[in-house]
């Protein structure tokens, strides 16, 4: 490879990427239960921790307001479910397609190129995440946990979070070769993110050395953005989260396309 000109990557097209989305939708027709059931996990957590433990918590100070514990942690669960979905659709499922089922090898013999595949997988992840978010936000409205009309913007915020997190997960797909790495990623990356991103309680409770680290993680930005919108504490600082997630999406999807090219052409 040394000395060779940098390979020219084919640009993705929306039309071709949608073919991959269509393929995923068809492949899931018989496993719809796997999709529907994913909606329930954050709802169970909301019930058990948000209300179960939350009844012993008087109220949570949140950026100058006092809100109930359930309305504090519900947007955290929404962000966590976006992360779960992004991980499943951006890492686990593409990992099996890439390493075991050789789905992409088959797709690449068609006019759909590798960039289309990456973009298509992320689009699929975003669509599925949006469906969950609509469900979860409805539950939040029904339980009185949405405190402001700003919450309508939570949907585009979920889509942005999903795109950023799924693109990040696709980097793992492009770099992972061992199935045992899935467990390591879950325990060393996902689980700490789930627990320590300001999802369950305010980051002000963390020790001083930990707080800046938490504030660098994508789930923290996603959860903070969603919480600002559902709790209705909206100011210019929310744009910082939007900027973080938008940049993460652009950087990660570019890196993923490069890594996937390298992986499938070496």
């Amino acid at each position, binding site marked *: 490879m040394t000395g060779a000109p940098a390979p020219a990557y084919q640009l993705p097209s929306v039309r071709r990427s949608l073919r991959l989305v269509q393929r995923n939708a068809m492949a899931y027709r018989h*496993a719809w*239960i*796997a999709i529907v*059931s*994913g909606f*329930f*996990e954050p709802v*169970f*957590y909301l*019930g*058990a*921790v948000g209300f*179960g*433990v939350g*009844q*012993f*918590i*008087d109220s*949570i100070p949140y950026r100058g307001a006092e809100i109930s*514990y359930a309305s504090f942690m519900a947007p955290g669960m929404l962000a966590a479910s976006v992360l779960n979905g992004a991980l499943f659709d951006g890492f686990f499922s593409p990992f099996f397609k890439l390493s075991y089922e050789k789905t992409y090898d088959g797709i690449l013999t068609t006019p759909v190129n590798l960039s289309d595949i990456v973009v298509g997988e992320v689009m699929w992840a975003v669509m599925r995440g949006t469906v969950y978010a609509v469900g979860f936000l409805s539950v939040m409205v029904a339980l009185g946990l949405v405190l402001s009309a700003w919450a309508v913007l939570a949907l585009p915020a979920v889509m942005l979070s999903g795109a950023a997190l799924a693109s990040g997960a696709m980097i793992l797909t492009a770099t992972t070769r061992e199935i*045992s790495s899935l*467990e*390591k990623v879950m*325990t*060393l990356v996902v*689980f*700490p993110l789930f*627990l*320590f991103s300001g999802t*369950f*309680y305010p980051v002000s*409770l963390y020790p001083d050395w930990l707080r800046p680290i938490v504030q660098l993680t994508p789930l923290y930005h996603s959860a903070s953005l969603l919480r600002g919108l559902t709790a209705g504490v909206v100011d210019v600082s929310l744009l910082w989260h939007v900027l973080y997630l938008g940049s993460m999406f652009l950087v990660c999807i570019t890196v993923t396309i490069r890594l996937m090219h390298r992986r499938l052409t070496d």
Partner: protein
Amino acid sequence: MNATKVVARNAIVFWRGWRSSIFLSVLAPVLFLTAMGLGLGSLVEPNAEAFGDAGYLAFFATGMLGANCMQSGAFSASYPMMSKLTWERNYEAILAAPLGVRDIYFGELAWIGVTLAQQTIPFFAIMALFGIFDSPLAVLAIPAAILTGLGFAAAVMALTATLQTDEAYTWLFRFVVTPLFLLSGTFFPINELPAWGVVAAQLTPLYHGIELIRGVTISNLTLLAGLAHIAYLLFFLAAGIMLGIRNLTHRLVS
């Protein structure tokens, strides 16, 4: 008994990746303990008496000890066993050796018991470091947790023996294991549930496992109540074993 040969086989396979396996299986509960026990614990502090004299961290940690064994036992009896039964067909290969279905069954169950111990003992040690226990009797929480996990393992093994695909596991983990984990008294006392919820929770094996663990560690348990919990868990395990052997024999021999 020939079942030891199946245990030895699994031990050899496990040996190759044991370092990361042990590390990961201890790390997850420690993270949970820190995030929930300490983090949430500080939020419920003003109302901590609802969780008993020992405080929220101790309440949650003892619940996690049992819940962790349930999840781990149920998981070990699902995908890994389906792989050996259906995908890799290891059991058919083992049956060609002078070993029978019961040897495979008890070998697998015993091995799950070993992995449960391998996770429970370090977790217990970490809880001791957090200063949760004040009596040597607390060591009894280890067998109590393993017994709970084995009961779930046996029940899921009985299910696995009847399955051709792994689709049912999505149902099992999302609609049985996770709700049990969240609502059987791990996070908050079940008497905070509505009346029908209390009755439902008391019927679950996880509730009895956790009550037993809490009884020997942080709360006072009468001997009679303790024996009742043990009897329930043994019955759950025995029923799972009987059903499991029946289903596995049906699957592999006929």
